[in-house]
Each structure stands twice: as C-alpha cells, then as structure tokens.
C-alpha cells in the first residue's frame, strides 16, 4: 500500500524517533511483535501502514505518546504524564511517579471533557511565589544563608497569608486553596516520602500516607518550599536521603518547612503559656509536637535551630522513642493526630470535585473517580455515587431501539 502524505509523516516520525533512541530496524521490529527489517523499513518510508495494535507498541518502544506518533497536537499534560512514566528510574520512587502520572492523566481527561480549570494561587500567594522564585534564583553556597532564606520565606508566607504564628490546620487544604497546587496523599510505602511536580502545566505535591501524620506534614511543607523557590527540576522525587541531602536547596527547603509549620513566635507563646524555661522539658517537647502536629524529629530539629534545646538533649529525647515519651507525658488520644497515619488516600480537591460533578452529569464514567480514590470496587463505588446522576440523563436508555 503506498502511503499518503500523512502516513509518510508517521513513518518519518518513527524513523526519526528510532534513530534518536539509537535503535536498529531489527530492534524496533522485535518490539512490534516480530516484524522483520524490511517491514520496518516499509513503515518508515510510508509504504506499509502501522496496524492498530502496532501503534501503541511502537509508541512505547520509541518513548513517544501515541498522539505524538500519530502527529496529533500534544496535550501538554498528557505529554508530561508520558515523561513521568519514562523518568521513574529509582525503584523507591517508581510508585510515586506512577501515581503522579495517573493523577496527571485524570487531570487531562477532566480538562478535556469537563472543562477542569487550572489551580490558581491567591494574590497573596502569587506575591510569595514571586518572592520565593527571586530567592531561589540567588546563587548561594552557605548553609547559614540557605537557612536564613528559608526562614524568611516561611515568615513572609505566614505574614502574607495572614496565618499568625499558631499551628496550621489542614495543611493540604491550605496549600491547595492558597497556592493553587494540587495535594495528594497516597499509600506509597516508606521508601519514598513523596514528589513535587511543577512543569507541563501541572502543579502537584504528592506525599506517602504510610508515614505518621506529623511526618507527612513536614514532607508537604518541604515540597511546597521547592515549588515556592522555583526549583528548576520539573519533578523532585523525595526519599529521606534526598530531603536531607547536604546542599543549599534542601537546607533552604527544610528551614522553610520548619518555620512554616513551627514558627519561633508560636513555639515561644506556647512555652510561655506552659511556663516552661530553657531547655524545654520532655513534657514541653511532646506538648509542642502535638500542638503543631509535627514529628518528634522535626520538632527537635526546629528547637535546635531556634536554640531552645541543645543538640545532645534533642538526641537523647529521640533516643527514648516517641511512643515512650507520649506514654509518659501525653494523653494517647491527643497524640494520635500526630502519630497515626493521615487519611490513606486524599485526591486533589480540584480534580475530585469536578470529577464528581462530571459523573453526575454523565460526562465521565467511574474511571476518573475510581482512579482518584484508588478504588477498584466499581460496583460498590457506583452504588455510592449513583444518587449524583442526573435522572434526565440517566433515562437516555429509553431511546434505544431493540
């Protein structure tokens, strides 16, 4: 079959992509289910059309989306999702990349079918983003400067968003509402802490919900810092080693997270209320931990930074174990908010809300909602959601001629 101009183009794209991928025609033929070199050559010159089943295989083998292979205008988010699929080289982070990719694909579907609008930062958050990006662009090498910058940005965020110095409430809701960044929690295991994605029209912070809630809050604040500071990486994968790496980017992000979650003024106010003196007592440490809903490790780090606890004292406390300290100094119920895992699956609110509306209007099926909630029990999920379906739309069956 001689190819028309459009099909010649498909062949040319395949040939170009194959050369870029340093593949031989034999290797591509093998990926296409055992085609010989001659057939691959014919495909590349437009003399043989790709079979339907070969399109996806060719795209996967060449690292392209099927849209790109077929010459369709790339949807930015979908292309970005494709990159997330191919960029997950680290075993520990593979699950996080997979989840991020799924969320981006759902975002793309909802944008296409239900007119999902992008997240938009508030005016105050926009100003902070400008400030953070300017800070992030400054070349620095000193740890002290990085920590100071992180603290100043956190204080600016507290002031700009009118958050005072007390404990923050629901951090995912706050980040979404103020910064227009989607926040998702997902059981990703304890090898990976999470991801910050900001590229390709996507702003997403994803954290593993397999850690205690206090730990997760620090991860979220840390990822927010990367976003605010305009980290040049589109995707920042985080495990413990990455989050606490010995470099200015992470020092700055950790300082931001600590001061955003536990401002010094707020700590001092609570200690005054408790009539505590320096160094803070173990019971004071546990009270602060529960009040600010942070992990013991994060609190000790911050108390060291603001010189309310010596390094050795902090280490001695950590060596006792958080559960022992809680048992000794706090009500178990009060500590639960920090020590227990947060909600297992939290989909981004922006996507979840639009998906539910679109489901009710029969513009999307169950797949986006099941994906957002990480559920596979479609029948049960349908039963829970059926009340949302607009009856007029549901009665369309009556037009069917049998």
């Amino acid at each position: 079959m001689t190819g028309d101009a459009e099909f010649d183009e498909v062949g040319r794209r395949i040939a170009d992509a194959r050369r870029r991928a340093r593949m031989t025609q034999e290797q591509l033929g093998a990926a296409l289910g055992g085609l010989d070199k001659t057939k691959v050559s014919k495909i590349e010159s437009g003399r043989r059309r790709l079979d339907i089943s070969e399109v996806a295989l060719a795209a996967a083998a060449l690292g392209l989306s099927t849209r790109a292979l077929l010459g369709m205008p790339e949807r930015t988010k979908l292309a970005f999702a494709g990159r997330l699929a191919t960029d997950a080289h680290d075993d520990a982070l593979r699950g996080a990349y997979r989840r991020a990719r799924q969320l981006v694909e759902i975002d793309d579907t909802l944008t296409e079918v239900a007119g999902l609008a992008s997240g938009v930062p508030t005016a105050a958050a926009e100003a902070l983003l400008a400030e953070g990006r300017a800070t992030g662009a400054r070349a620095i090498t000193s740890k002290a400067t990085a920590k100071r910058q992180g603290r100043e940005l956190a204080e600016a965020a507290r002031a700009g968003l009118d958050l005072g110095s007390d404990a923050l409430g629901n951090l995912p809701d706050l980040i979404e509402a103020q910064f227009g960044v989607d926040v998702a929690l997902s059981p990703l295991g304890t090898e990976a802490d999470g991801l910050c994605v900001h590229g390709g029209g996507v702003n997403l912070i994803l954290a593993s919900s397999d850690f205690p809630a206090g730990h997760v809050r620090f991860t979220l604040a840390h990822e927010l810092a990367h976003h605010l500071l305009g980290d040049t990486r589109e995707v920042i994968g985080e495990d413990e080693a990455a989050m606490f790496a010995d470099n200015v980017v992470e020092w700055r992000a950790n300082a931001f997270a600590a001061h955003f979650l536990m401002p010094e003024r707020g700590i001092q106010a609570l200690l005054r209320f408790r009539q505590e003196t320096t160094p803070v007592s173990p019971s004071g440490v546990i009270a602060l931990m529960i009040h600010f809903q942070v992990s013991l490790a994060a609190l000790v780090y911050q108390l060291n930074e603001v010189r309310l606890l010596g390094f050795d004292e902090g280490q001695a406390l950590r060596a006792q174990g958080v559960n022992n300290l809680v048992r000794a100094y706090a009500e178990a119920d009060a500590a639960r908010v920090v020590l227990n895992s947060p909600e297992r699956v939290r989909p981004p609110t922006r996507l979840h809300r639009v998906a539910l509306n679109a489901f009710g209007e029969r513009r999307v099926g169950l797949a986006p909602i099941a994906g957002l909630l990480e559920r596979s029990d479609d029948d049960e999920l349908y039963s829970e959601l059926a009340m949302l379906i607009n009856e007029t739309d549901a009665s369309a069956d009556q037009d069917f001629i049998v």
Partner: protein
Amino acid sequence: MSLIFPARRRTPPPSHRPSTTLFDTGGLLTLAVDAGLWNLAVSRFGGTARTVVAVVKELEHLRKDANVGGLATTALADLVWLGDPIVLDEDAGRKQAERLRNIIAAGRPLTHDLQHYAEAALIVVGRPIGAQAIIEDYDARVAAQGNGVRPMSVHKLLHLWIRQGVLTSAQAFEYSEAIRSAKRGMDYTEEELIEGGFKLGRVGQP
C-alpha cells in the same frame, strides 16, 4: 449466516429498525455466554448490526485470555451477521479514537494494548450516523452518550426486551444467570431486571 448455536427461539424482528446497531467486544463476549441469547441478538439486530475491525482484533487477542478466551472463540466463530467489520478511517479516525480512548481510560492502567480502543473506534464510527451501540463498559457508555452514540448494556437490553414482550422476565433472568455464571455480571433478581433501575446502571464487564 453461520450459526454455531442451535436456535432456541426466534422472535420476529421489530417493524422499524435503526440504521445501525454497533456491537462492542464486551457486548459480544457477554452475548456469547448463552446460545439462545446470542441467537436472540442475531434475530433482533441481524441486518442492521455492525462492528469495527478493532473489535475483531480485540476478540482475536482475547482468545488467549484465561478468563474470556472461550467466549472470544465462540464469538469469533459467528460474526457473519455483523457484516464486514468497518475499517476506521486510517488517520483522522484513528486520532479521534486515541483521544476517546484516553478519555475512557482516564488514567486507569490498560490491561492490554487494545483495551478501550475498540469502544473508542465504535464511537468514532457511530457518531456521524447516529448509531446505537451495545457496549458493556460503563465508562465507554458514558463516552458514547457524550458523543451522540446511544449506548446500552446487555442487561439493559434484557430489561427492554422484557418491557417490549420479546422476553418473559423468567427468560431474561435465565440469561442474566448465565451471564453471572460466566462472571460477566452481578447477581440480579428477576424484579431488578423488570424494573431496570439504577442497579443495572453500571452493569457490564469490559
């Protein structure tokens, strides 16, 4: 027409017929659970029923599937009543189908390369002619409805056949039980098939 099943019953076709009823892979697999059900569909839709090449390819692919391989083989043995499978327009049609497939999948991992492609192709073919379609996957039915193709699951078809006197509720229940035994449908009561309410809303296996 090659019929692999002995005819169990033949009902006269309705007096007026739609131009085309398209059959999806899942719909054909479900109909294939029972010879009588298959033959009823042939008698009601034969002559106006069509499918697309992608459905045939997916059935061929599924022949090796541990769960539905037998049903795929059964369906493939009797596709003559569906006429020549419609070839999707090579470029524009395939692009539209890819777009629809992304919408139907909506981030769910595909279990095989052709998953949801056949449903998408069916919608692309059915849209310009205002076709109706037997589609088992709920998300694909929603996509079909949004694109001007009237979709129906096999269970809803049983419900409408009861209402139109094509089947008694007992006969429909028997077919529903055969579908359930083949793990292609939930446990429905005769009353639910008569009523056709929301429990039948999502019914159907892709």
